[in-house]
C-alpha cells in the first residue's frame, strides 16, 4: 500500500510540470502609451517576459496557485498584480506609472543654487567654477556671475541681494568659517582662502536657507569637500604669480594630501601698470593637509587643516592731508575642520564635526601699530532620520566659542562669546508633486545675553514634467560684526526676514529660473561717526545701538543652455535690486555703495577641438553704485558710471613630459574699460579722488601638471 503512496507522490509531483498556464497581456501608461522592454516576472520564479514594441507580452508557466506578477522598467514605478494560475489562460491589461527621477523630482529651489558634480540639477560644476573667465579660480569671484549677487568691487565678501559682505557666511562641510578671506585692504578686495579644487559641490543660497545654517543674514555659501581621491598623484603649478605643489597618497581606505602654494605678485605688478602704489606687493604662503578615511562603505572621516600667511604693504591716499598713508598688513590664519558622517542604517545618518579657526592680523598705519585677532571654535552634531523614500527629519545642536581682539598702539579691547544653537526641521513629500520643509533654529549668545528663535519654511510644487514653483519664508539672525561687539556689550541680534517666490524650468540641457524676493531688515547696528568710515584697520564708534532697518526687493533671472551649441555652453544671469537701508552712521535710509540696481553677467564656454582648448568668456555689467559726497545734502545720492568688464581665459589641455597638463592664459578687462568704483573725499569736501580697480587689466599665465592622474586635488 505504502509503495503506491510513494508512487503517487512521485507521479503527482512530476505531473504538476505539465499543468501550464499561459499569461499574456499589454502594458500601457495611464495615457494609453505602450511601453516596450518592460520586464514581467512571476515573483520567485524565472518565469516572465518582456513587452515588445507594441507593449504586449506572453509567457507560459508551470507554476500553480496564487502568485504575484511584478513588472518594472527604467523611468517607471515598479508595480505588481496578484494572479491565480490554474491552467486557464490569463489575459491582463496593466498600467504603469512614470517614476520621479532626480531631475524631474520636486525639490526646494527657492533661494538655492546648487553647483557641483553629483547633483543633476546643479547649475555649475566644480570645473565651471575653476574655469570661469575673470574669476581666476576664486570661488567667490565665480559665484559673482550668478543671479542675486552684486560685483564686490573693492570690498571683501559676497554681496547678496542688498546685503553687506559680512551677511554672507561660508560653511565648510557644515562648519561655519569665520574668516574666509584675507585682510581687507584700503579699496582692494582679497581672494577667498579656499581653492575651488577642494570641493565637489557648492550650494549658494541667496535666501530662505535651511535651519541648519545660522548666523547669516543674507546668504549661505555651503562648500562640500571632495571624497576619497582615486589615485596617488603629484601636481605642480607654475603661474606668473607664483607656484604650488601637492602630493596625494592613496591608501586602501584612506588618502593623505599635502600641498602648498607661494604667490608673490611683485613680478607681475612691476610689468603691468598698477593703480595702487604698492610698497610690497602681496606675498601669500599657504600650506594644507587633507586626510580622508572611509572605514566602511557608509561612513567617512575628513580632516582638513590649512595655514596661510599674507604680507602686503602699500601707500593709500589720505584725502584729509593731501599726503599718503603707509599701510603694512600681515595676516596669519589657521583653519582646521574635522567631520565624520555615517549612514549606519538605511534610515539613519549621523554627522559630527569640530572646527577651529584663528586669525592674527597685525600691521601699521604710518607709525601707528594695529592688530586684529579673531577665533572661532565650533562643535556640531546632526542626526537625520529618513522616512520612506524621500522625506526626512533632522535635528542638531551646535556650540561656539567665539572671540576677537583689536589693538591700537598700546591699547586693546576684546570680547568672548559662548553660543549654543539647536535646530530641527522636517522635509516632507506630500505625494510626488509637493515637498514642504518646516523647521526652526534657536540660538543663545552669552555676550549678547539673549535668545533668538528663527522659524524657516519652504514649499515646492511641481507644475509640469520639467517645471516647478517654490516659495520660502524665514527669519534670520546674525550677531553684529566683531568690530561693533568689541566696542559695546549692549548690542543684540541683527535680523532679516526673507520672502521668496521662484519658478524653475529644468531639463538636462536647459535651465531657466526666475526668482522674486523681498527682504526686510531690522535691528541693524548703528553708531555715531563723522564722515564715511573706512572698512580697514581700526575705527572708534560711539553710541552703538540696534536701531537700523531697511529692505531689499527685486528679481533674479538665470538662463543656461548647454545643448544648442556643439561643445559650447553659456549662461546669462540678471539681477534687479531695489534696496535701501539705515545702518552704520547713515542719517536716513539710503542705497549702500555695494548694491547696484542692475547686474548682468554673460558667461560663454566653448571647447575648440582643433586647438585642444577651452575658451571661456565672461562679460559683467553693473549699473552705477552710490558713493558718499559730503557736498551733496542728499546722503548717498551720487552714482558712479556703470561698470563693464570683459574677460577671457584659454585652457589648453596637453601633455607635458607625458603627464596631464593645462596651460592657462587669462586676461581681465580686455577692452580696457575705465571703471571707477567710487570716490574718496576729504571731510571738507574740497576735492575728490576716484577709486580705481587695482589694475586696469590683469594677466595671468600658468601651467598645471598632474603626475599619475588626470585630476587636481589641490
Amino acid at each position, binding site marked *: 500500500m*505504502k509503495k503506491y503512496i*510513494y508512487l503517487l*507522490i*512521485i507521479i503527482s*509531483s512530476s505531473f504538476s510540470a505539465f499543468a501550464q498556464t499561459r499569461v499574456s497581456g499589454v502594458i500601457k501608461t495611464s495615457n494609453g502609451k505602450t511601453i*516596450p*522592454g518592460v*520586464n514581467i*516576472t512571476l*515573483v*520567485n*520564479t*524565472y*518565469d*516572465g*517576459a*518582456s513587452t515588445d*514594441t507594441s507593449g504586449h507580452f506572453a509567457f507560459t508557466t508551470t507554476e500553480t496557485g496564487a502568485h504575484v506578477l511584478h513588472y518594472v522598467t*527604467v*523611468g517607471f514605478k515598479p508595480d505588481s498584480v496578484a494572479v491565480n494560475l490554474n491552467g486557464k489562460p490569463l489575459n491582463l491589461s496593466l498600467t504603469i506609472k512614470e517614476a520621479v*527621477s532626480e*531631475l*524631474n523630482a520636486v525639490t526646494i529651489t527657492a533661494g538655492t543654487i546648487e553647483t557641483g*558634480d553629483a547633483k*543633476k540639477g*546643479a547649475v555649475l*560644476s*566644480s*570645473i565651471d567654477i575653476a574655469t570661469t573667465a575673470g574669476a581666476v579660480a576664486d570661488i567667490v569671484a565665480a559665484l559673482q556671475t550668478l543671479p542675486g549677487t552684486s560685483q564686490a568691487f573693492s570690498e571683501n565678501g559676497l554681496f547678496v541681494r542688498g546685503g553687506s559682505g559680512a551677511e554672507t557666511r561660508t560653511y565648510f562641510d557644515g562648519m561655519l568659517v569665520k574668516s574666509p578671506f584675507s585682510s581687507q585692504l584700503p579699496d582692494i578686495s582679497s581672494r577667498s582662502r579656499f581653492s575651488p579644487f577642494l570641493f*565637489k559641490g557648492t550650494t549658494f543660497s541667496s535666501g530662505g536657507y535651511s535651519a541648519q545654517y545660522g548666523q547669516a543674514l543674507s546668504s549661505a555659501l555651503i562648500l562640500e569637500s571632495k571624497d576619497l581621491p*582615486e*589615485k596617488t598623484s603629484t601636481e605642480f603649478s607654475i603661474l606668473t604669480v607664483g607656484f604650488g605643489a601637492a602630493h596625494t597618497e592613496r591608501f586602501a581606505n584612506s588618502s593623505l594630501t599635502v600641498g602648498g602654494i607661494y604667490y608673490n605678485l611683485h613680478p607681475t605688478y612691476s610689468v603691468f601698470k598698477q593703480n595702487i602704489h604698492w610698497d610690497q606687493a602681496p606675498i601669500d604662503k599657504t600650506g594644507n593637509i587633507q586626510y580622508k578615511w572611509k572605514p566602511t562603505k557608509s561612513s567617512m572621516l575628513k580632516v582638513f587643516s590649512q595655514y596661510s600667511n599674507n604680507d602686503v604693504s602699500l601707500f593709500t591716499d589720505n584725502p584729509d592731508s593731501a599726503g599718503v598713508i603707509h599701510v603694512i598688513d600681515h595676516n596669519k590664519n589657521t583653519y582646521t575642520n574635522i567631520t565624520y558622517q555615517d549612514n549606519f542604517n538605511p534610515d539613519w545618518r549621523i554627522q559630527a564635526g569640530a572646527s577651529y579657526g584663528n586669525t592674527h592680523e597685525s600691521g601699521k598705519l604710518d607709525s601707528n601699530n594695529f592688530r586684529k585677532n579673531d577665533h572661532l571654535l565650533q562643535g556640531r552634531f546632526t542626526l537625520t532620520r529618513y522616512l520612506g523614500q524621500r522625506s526626512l527629519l533632522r535635528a542638531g545642536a551646535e556650540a561656539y566659542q567665539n572671540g576677537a581682539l583689536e589693538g591700537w598702539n598700546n591699547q586693546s579691547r576684546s570680547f568672548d562669546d559662548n553660543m549654543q544653537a539647536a535646530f530641527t526641521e522636517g522635509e516632507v513629500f506630500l505625494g510626488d508633486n509637493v515637498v514642504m520643509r518646516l523647521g526652526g533654529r534657536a540660538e543663545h549668545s552669552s555676550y549678547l545675553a539673549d535668545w533668538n528663535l528663527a522659524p524657516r519654511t519652504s514649499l515646492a510644487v511641481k507644475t509640469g514634467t520639467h517645471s516647478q514653483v517654490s516659495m520660502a519664508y524665514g527669519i534670520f539672525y546674525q550677531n553684529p560684526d566683531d568690530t561693533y561687539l568689541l566696542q559695546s556689550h549692549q548690542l543684540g541680534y541683527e535680523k532679516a526676514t526673507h520672502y521668496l517666490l521662484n519658478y524653475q524650468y529644468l531639463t*538636462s540641457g536647459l535651465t531657466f529660473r526666475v526668482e522674486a524676493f523681498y527682504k526686510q531688515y531690522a535691528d541693524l547696528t548703528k553708531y555715531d561717526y563723522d564722515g564715511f568710515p573706512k572698512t580697514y584697520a581700526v575705527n572708534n564708534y560711539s553710541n552703538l545701538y540696534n536701531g537700523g532697518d531697511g529692505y531689499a526687493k527685486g528679481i533674479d533671472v538665470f538662463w543656461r543652455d*548647454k545643448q544648442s551649441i556643439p561643445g559650447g*555652453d553659456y549662461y546669462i544671469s540678471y539681477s534687479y535690486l531695489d534696496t535701501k537701508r539705515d545702518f552704520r552712521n547713515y542719517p536716513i535710509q539710503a542705497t549702500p555703495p555695494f548694491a547696484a540696481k542692475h547686474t548682468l553677467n554673460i558667461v560663454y564656454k566653448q571647447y575648440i*577641438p582643433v586647438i*585642444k582648448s577651452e575658451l571661456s568668456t565672461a562679460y559683467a555689467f553693473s549699473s552705477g553704485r552710490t558713493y558718499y559726497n559730503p557736498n551733496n545734502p542728499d546722503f548717498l545720492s551720487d552714482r558712479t558710471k556703470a561698470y563693464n568688464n570683459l574677460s577671457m581665459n584659454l585652457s589648453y*589641455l*596637453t*601633455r607635458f613630459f607625458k603627464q*596631464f597638463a593645462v596651460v592657462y592664459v587669462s586676461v581681465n578687462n580686455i577692452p580696457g574699460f575705465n571703471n571707477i568704483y567710487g570716490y574718496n573725499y576729504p571731510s571738507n569736501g574740497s576735492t575728490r579722488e576716484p577709486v580705481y580697480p587695482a589694475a586696469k587689466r590683469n594677466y595671468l599665465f600658468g601651467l598645471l601638471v598632474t603626475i599619475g*592622474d*588626470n*585630476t587636481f586635488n589641490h
Partner: protein
Amino acid sequence: MKTLKLCIALLIITFSVKAQSADKYTAAMQKGMTLVDSASTAEQFTTAANFFERVATAETKQWLPQYYAGYCILHATILGKQDNETKDASYDKAMSYVEKAEALKPANSEVLVLEGYITFMKMSVFSQQRAMTMIPKANALLEKALVIDPENPRAFLVKGQNTFYTPESFGGGKAKAKEILTTAADKYKNQKASGFEPAWGARRCQVLLQQCN
C-alpha cells in the same frame, strides 16, 4: 525496515527536487547565454537583460545572473536611443546588479572590468561635468581588475576602449588605444573561460583595432 525505505524514498525525492532546481538554473543560464550571444540590437539586449534580471531576482546567491543582468542592461543602454536622463538611470541600474555580483564574488577581476565599463559610459552621458572625476575612477577600477588577473583580456579591452574614446589631451587617443587593444587581442588568444564565466569581447576588440588604423 519500512522506516528505512521511507527515508530512502524521501531522500530520493528531495535529491531529485534539488537536482531538478540545479538543472533548472543551468538550463536558464544556458538559455540566457544564447540570448546574449545572439543579441545585437537594443531590443534584443533588453530581452536578455530582462531574462537575467528574472533569474538574478530568484537566485540571490549566484553572481553570474547578476553579472549578466548588468552586462545586458549596459549594452541595451549603449545601443538604445533614450534621452540622457533615462540612460543615466539605466547605467545606475546596471551598476546596482554588478554591485550585487561584487558582494557575492568579491575581488573578482571580471566584475571590476564591468564596473569600469559602466562608470565610463555613465561619464559619457554628461561628459562635461563628469570627465574630470569619472574617467580616473573608471581607470582605477580597470587597474584593480588587472592587479587581480593580469591575463584578463576584457580588462585590456575596456581600458583600450576607454582610451579610444578619451581625447588625446586627456590622455587618450587612437595610438595609445591601439597599444592596449593589441595586448587585449593577444590575451584573448589564451583565454580560458569555463561554464558560464565571462568570455565576451574578442570580436569587439578586432573592430576597435581596425578603427585605430
